[in-house]
C-alpha cells in the first residue's frame, strides 16, 4: 500500500523559505503569484494491507517524527 503525507506550516507561522521563493518568482518575472508557502511531501510504502491499520501507522509516523505539530499541520493520503 502506498501513502503520501503532506506537511505544511500552520497559518500565521512565518515561512521565510516561502518568502524567498516568492521573491525569486517575482524576480523571474512570473507575475500574479500572491504568496508562496513551502511544505514537505513524504511518499511511503506500507507493509500493512489493512487500511485502518495503515492509517494508524501513518498517524503515528506523522505525529512522532514527520511533522512538528507545534508549527506544522499534516494530511495523510492513503492510495490504493
Amino acid at each position, binding site marked *: 500500500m502506498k501513502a503520501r503525507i503532506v506537511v505544511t506550516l500552520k497559518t500565521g*507561522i*512565518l515561512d*521565510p*523559505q516561502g*518568502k*524567498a521563493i516568492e521573491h525569486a518568482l517575482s524576480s523571474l518575472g512570473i507575475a500574479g503569484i500572491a504568496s508562496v508557502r513551502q511544505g514537505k511531501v513524504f511518499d511511503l510504502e506500507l507493509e500493512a494491507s489493512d487500511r485502518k491499520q495503515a492509517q494508524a501507522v501513518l498517524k503515528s509516523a506523522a505525529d*512522532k*517524527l*514527520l511533522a*512538528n505539530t*507545534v*508549527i506544522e499541520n499534516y494530511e495523510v493520503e492513503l492510495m490504493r
Partner: protein
Amino acid sequence: MNSAVIIFPGINRERDMARALTLLSGRAPAFVWHAETMLPAGTDLVVIPGGFSYGDYLRCGAIAARAPIMAAVRAHADKGGLVLGVCNGFQILCEAQFLPGVLMRNAALKFICRDVYLRVERSDSPFTCGYNAGQVIRVPVAHGEGNYIADKETIEHLEREERILFRYAAPDGSLDPSWNFNGATNAIAGILNERGNVLGMMPHPEDHVEDALGSTDGRGLFAGLSNHFAKAA
C-alpha cells in the same frame, strides 16, 4: 561536577564544549555516543552541544531528538538532573519536547555567525548563578535557525514563570529590535523548562572562555554550574 557530552553524527562543537567544561570545572566530561542507552553513573550535567546533527535533515534536531540516548537524558532530567543544550542542542531539546516551542529559520534568512550581547535575566538558576541578574555578556552565535517561536500562551507562561534566562540585547542591556538579530519572539535567546533544570540556548558560551579569544564572558555559565555542584556536595 561530572558532566556528559552527548555526540550525534554531525555534531561539531563537542570539543570546545569539553574544553570549557574541563577548564571551569576541573574535570573532563565523558563523551556519550547517541546509540548508547545509559549515561555514565554519577552524571550531574548532560550537555548537548552544537553542530548539525544528521545534516539538519527533516528539521533541525528532529532526528537526534529520537535517538536511543535521549530516553536516558529524559530519565536524568525527570530525576531533576541538569541538562544544557546549546545551539543545535537547543533545537534538539525543543524537538524532544524537553522545552516548548521551536527554532525557525532566522527572520532575515541568513546564517548568522558573530558576537552578540545577551542580557542575563536571572542569577538564581544553577546555569546563571555565575552572573548577576541584568548583566550583559558578549558571546558568539552561529546559526541559521535560531528564531524562537511558540504560541502566545507558551510565551506568556515563559514570561510569567521567568523561564527566559537570556535575551538578545544592546550592549547596554536595553531591548532593541535592531539587536534581536534573528527575530526571536521577545528576543528569547535561552529558556528553562518548567522545573528549571533544563536550559536551551542558541549562543555559544563555550566559545568565550579564554582571554586569547577576546572575551571570557562565557565562563560564568560553567563556573556557576561548577559552584552549584560544589555547594551541593
